[in-house]
């Protein structure tokens, strides 16, 4: 406990920079503890002004002195009872209206106070000018100081003013908020009654006690009850009843309204804004971007651009990594295995056909995730995602879904597991369960590599459109499921509107922030590849190496179709045949996709890409490999620039009658840029379906299945943890059945329409 004969208290709303002022005043002389009997932090320190030592207490941040929370009671009691010499009220100068409500309550306590307009630089940069003299005058002569706590600006003037107020050389009047004639009469009557009770009338300002009694302040009423002031309590009760007959509203709200009116008047006169209208540039832009119709179209257009960018710009990088992994890295691994005498053993097969094919096949798609997360980070940083949330909330509200569902749904685009936990922000249990039920349909990042590989293999220039379509389909299925549930199971429930704070638009200038977000999110994908995918690749390799029957081969010498994995997959393949992808290989890939969606690609690399063609006549040397890696990297860089430049003409070319030539920085002739997996998938799907067109339809149906069935085991566990086994089972059955039904519809519907 820091003792001094003089004490100043710092009070204010949360997040106004009170702590920076406290630090600027006290420096290193601080003590942090808890308020007696509370878990609220108490910060005390000392400051020396001229030759006087003054104790400084940082009171908890609070919006009011209504004694409804521990922070409010601590603040109020300290100011009233701890005999503080001065109360320094810190406010955010750029948000004065929000802070002045608290200031009026402090001033009503009739204690010597100083008003500190902190963050005054931020206010000035927003074109806010505060007439300090007029503000002081309207607040009863309270000294008004401008500071920038973070830069210690104005602290010396504050210290001098503290001394002036302590020495009473800065006279202050008592401010009186005008509560209107009827309320003022009631206050005056109660004030007289309070003054008649010396014990209370001398401890607290009588007018303040009268106002608190009219507000039905629990703390004040209980103090009077404890002290047995029955007549005063009775008079209060009678006054409240009388006022209740005069007004239709509760007295506390009427009093608060009058305070807000007072604050409004003060701000109107003492604050001048550069932008005199209420509408800022961001507001004007929001008229279109956050519009309930235009906003949806802009959201869709931006999403389309994001996936065009992701699919096309990342493609050269994906090809490069695939080339490096399937070329030099595979050569080097084989060479090391040969060097230790394990050539053509199961160890070589495990490393090359298991680990490299599985994990490497997934890591190839790191650039896709990098580009996707980069564009999303830019949208987040620019302030657009908040608008997207508003627009999506509008769409959901329009079909009767809970507004707050958009929060977890947007998280679901990254990963379903945290999205399920994010439903905890929804208080209503039915709404929470409903939102959790819809989340698996929001396409998570792990599904993107599957779309990317199929889009490149089957849809060429329309790759971006396919990916965009998958995300849209996911949203549409989620909204339709929600709509059906909302109008059947949860039809009694009303949906409540939200009021959202939209941050101003800004150009993302801190690339470090953007990169941190991108890297943290991509890291998760790489982490999964190194753990879950590695383990599943080893298990799948083992199941592929074990023959299902002894007469079908031996360990590591068995046809994939005759292996344990092939036999298990074969049993479920017929169920998928009506949807066009009834081979054991697709069935097996979908089975491993239950562990994690990235595993689908890993498994496909293991079972589809068995033979990469004839071996070259002469193995490239280590030097040749290194030269190839760097040469192809240079070309990849140029191709990335080319694809970025081509986004705009490609977008405009979709408009009827527009034909803009695309840039071509690298003349790669008719080079085949498809990966080994893409080639294998194309031929396998066409072979299973019977024709190229049918193969394309089957590929589309397969992607739909991947989008709609269970995201991964972790999400199932999260669902069980949050909503119980029953709801988890409902979700598993529903998503698998719906995936089968919709993919069947896509394939058979396409055939009926003559698309296959």
């Amino acid at each position, binding site marked *: 406990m820091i003792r001094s004969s003089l004490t100043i208290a710092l009070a204010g709303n949360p997040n106004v920079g009170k702590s920076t002022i406290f630090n600027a005043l006290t420096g290193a002389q601080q003590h942090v503890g808890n308020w007696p009997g509370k878990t609220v932090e108490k910060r005390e320190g000392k400051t020396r002004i001229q030759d006087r030592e003054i104790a400084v207490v940082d009171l908890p941040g609070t*919006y009011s002195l209504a004694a409804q929370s521990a922070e409010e009671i601590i603040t109020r009691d300290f100011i009233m009872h701890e005999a503080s010499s001065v109360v320094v009220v810190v406010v955010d100068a750029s948000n004065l209206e929000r*802070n002045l409500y608290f200031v009026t309550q402090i001033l009503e306590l009739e204690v010597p106070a100083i008003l500190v307009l902190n963050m005054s630089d931020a206010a000035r940069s927003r074109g806010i000018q505060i007439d300090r003299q007029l503000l002081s005058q309207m607040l009863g002569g309270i000294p008004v100081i401008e500071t920038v706590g973070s830069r210690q600006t104005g602290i010396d003037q504050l210290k001098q003013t503290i001394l002036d107020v302590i020495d009473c050389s800065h006279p202050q009047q008592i401010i009186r908020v005008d509560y209107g004639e009827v309320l003022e009469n009631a206050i005056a009557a109660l004030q007289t009654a309070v003054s008649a009770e010396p014990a209370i009338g001398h401890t607290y300002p009588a007018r303040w006690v009268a106002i608190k009694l009219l507000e039905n302040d629990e703390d004040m009423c209980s103090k009077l009850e404890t002290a047995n002031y029955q007549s005063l309590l009775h008079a209060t009760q009678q006054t409240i009843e009388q006022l209740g007959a005069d007004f239709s509203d509760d007295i506390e709200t009427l009093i608060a309204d009058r305070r807000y009116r007072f604050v409004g008047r003060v701000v109107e006169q003492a604050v001048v804004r550069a932008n005199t209208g209420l509408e800022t540039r961001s507001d004007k832009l929001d008229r279109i971007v956050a519009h309930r119709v235009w906003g949806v179209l802009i959201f869709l257009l931006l999403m389309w651009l994001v996936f065009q960018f992701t699919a096309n710009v990342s493609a050269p990088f994906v090809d490069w990594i695939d080339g490096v992994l399937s070329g030099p890295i595979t050569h080097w691994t084989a060479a090391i295995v040969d060097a230790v005498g394990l050539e053509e053993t199961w160890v070589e097969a495990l490393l090359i056909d298991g680990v490299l094919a599985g994990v490497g096949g997934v890591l190839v798609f790191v650039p896709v995730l990098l580009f996707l997360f980069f564009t999303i980070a830019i949208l987040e940083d620019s302030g657009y995602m908040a608008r997207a949330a508003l627009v999506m909330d509008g769409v959901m509200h329009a079909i009767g879904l809970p507004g707050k569902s958009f929060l977890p749904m947007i998280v679901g685009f990254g990963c379903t597991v945290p999205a399920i936990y994010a439903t905890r922000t929804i208080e209503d249990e039915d709404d929470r369960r409903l939102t959790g039920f819809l989340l698996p349909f929001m396409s998570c990042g792990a599904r993107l590599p599957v779309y990317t590989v199929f889009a490149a293999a089957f849809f060429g220039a329309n790759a971006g459109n396919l990916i965009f379509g998958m995300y849209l389909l996911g949203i549409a299925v989620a909204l339709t499921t929600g709509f059906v549930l909302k109008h059947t199971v949860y039809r009694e429930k009303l949906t409540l509107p939200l009021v959202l704070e939209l941050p101003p638009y800004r150009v993302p200038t801190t690339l470090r922030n953007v990169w941190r977000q991108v890297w943290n999110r991509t890291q998760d994908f790489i982490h999964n590849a190194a753990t879950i995918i590695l383990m599943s690749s080893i298990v799948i390799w083992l199941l592929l190496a074990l023959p299902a029957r002894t007469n079908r081969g031996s360990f590591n010498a068995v046809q994939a179709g005759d292996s344990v994995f092939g036999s298990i997959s074969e049993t479920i393949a017929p169920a998928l045949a009506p949807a066009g992808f009834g081979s054991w290989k697709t069935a097996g890939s979908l089975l491993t996709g239950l562990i994690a969606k990235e595993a689908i690609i890993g498994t496909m690399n293991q079972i589809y890409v068995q033979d990469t063609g004839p071996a070259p006549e002469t193995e490239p040397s280590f030097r040749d490999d290194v030269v190839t890696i760097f040469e192809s990297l240079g070309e990849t860089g140029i191709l990335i620039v080319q694809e970025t430049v081509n986004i705009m003409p490609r977008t405009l070319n979709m408009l009827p009658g527009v034909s803009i030539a695309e840039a071509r920085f690298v003349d790669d002739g008719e080079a085949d840029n498809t990966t080994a997996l893409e080639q294998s998938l194309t031929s396998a799907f066409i072979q299973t379906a019977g024709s190229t067109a049918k193969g394309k339809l089957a590929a589309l149906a397969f992607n739909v299945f991947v989008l709609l069935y269970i995201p991964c085991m972790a999400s199932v566990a999260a669902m069980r943890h949050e909503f119980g086994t029953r709801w988890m089972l409902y979700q598993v059955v529903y998503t698998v059945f719906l995936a089968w039904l919709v993919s069947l519809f896509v394939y058979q519907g396409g055939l009926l329409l003559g698309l296959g």
Partner: protein
Amino acid sequence: MAATLRDVLHTFETRRGPLSLNQMARQLDMTPAMLESMLDYWVRKGKLREINDETPPCSACGHATGCPFVMKMPRSYELIQGEPLPHTTNPPCTCCR
């Protein structure tokens, strides 16, 4: 300032669909900061709920700084129907990938 605290609450009660804080402030002919102050009042009174970016941590993936997929979403307010429910505070997360 024409709009009262009741006007603010009434806008929530009668509104269909979401609204931005600035749009609401314009509708009520007041500054957004003044509206926020009035919203604070109704939050304290238990009539409105303030929703901050309160997504519970899911640290099972090993990210020291919390889940990277959780986006910072805008602060928002909603009407409370009936008795306010106790706030949910970060229950243990057992998800494990």
